[in-house]
């Protein structure tokens, strides 16, 4: 089935891009470039999301994450004029090696755990080809029924965060 292999190819490419640019983000010394690498990673992730029948989330990922949150990062970086990370050597070698080991170890652990963990199937997905039918109305109905409380709390959280951010970044004149 050519469509399926096509999906495989897309998956392979997208995950390669995501992982490669994620690595690049970590290795990168210039914060601006780190941000850009992460943006590319998000594009890869968003393609993966489309493969997972979540185009709405994919668009949201780009719209909110790449388009708003990371731009905010960029702004702050420019505001603070962070050209390059401090050139002096990392004077915490223990932290460095241990951190790397722990990250790798935990990554392996999690990979093993997630692969072993059984996922109770809710019902085998069936239906037409991708692009799939509209899932947005179903999401909307869920949002305003089962998740209404979470939604309202979230709106409150956003308000508080906005006020908090405003207060924190305000210059205080003595």
């Amino acid at each position: 089935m050519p469509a399926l292999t096509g999906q495989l190819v897309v998956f392979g490419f997208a995950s390669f891009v995501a992982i490669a640019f994620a690595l690049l983000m970590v290795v990168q010394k210039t914060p601006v470039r780190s941000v850009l690498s992460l943006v590319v990673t998000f594009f890869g992730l968003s393609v993966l999301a489309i493969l997972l029948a979540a185009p709405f989330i994919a668009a949201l990922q780009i719209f909110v994450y790449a388009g708003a949150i990371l731009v905010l990062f960029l702004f702050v970086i420019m505001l603070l004029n962070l050209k390059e990370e401090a050139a002096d050597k990392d004077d915490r070698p223990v932290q460095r090696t241990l951190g790397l080991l722990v990250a790798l170890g935990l990554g392996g652990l999690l990979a093993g755990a997630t692969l072993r963990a059984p996922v109770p199937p809710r019902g085998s997905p069936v239906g037409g080809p991708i692009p799939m039918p509209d899932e947005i109305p179903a999401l909307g109905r869920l949002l305003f029924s089962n998740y209404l409380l979470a939604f309202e709390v979230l709106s409150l959280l956003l308000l508080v965060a906005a006020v908090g951010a405003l207060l924190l970044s305000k210059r205080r004149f003595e």
Partner: protein
Amino acid sequence: MTGVLPGVAPMAVPAGAFLVVATLLFAIGLAGALLKRNALSIFLSIELMMNAVNLLFLTYARMRGDLAGQMIVFFVIAVAAAEAAVGLAIFVALFRAHRTVDVDKIALLKW
């Protein structure tokens, strides 16, 4: 209302592959968070970790064929927005006070 994912084709890519990619990205983000010294870079790494988890949720949603996972991702993204706003505001305040965002030069979380 049931939250069942509207009918989609069987997965062409094995779900395990998505899980592996997600954990890999999580591990990379974790390494970044532990190794970077610039507060902003650490924050970026945390964002990457959150997105890796998002991918995991999406995969499970696809595997189970319902929308709960996508819903959670929706909320995670919204919370991330709030978190970014406050976090970055804190960094700006921090930079004003210390002229640096190198976390190794700031040891205020003591006593």
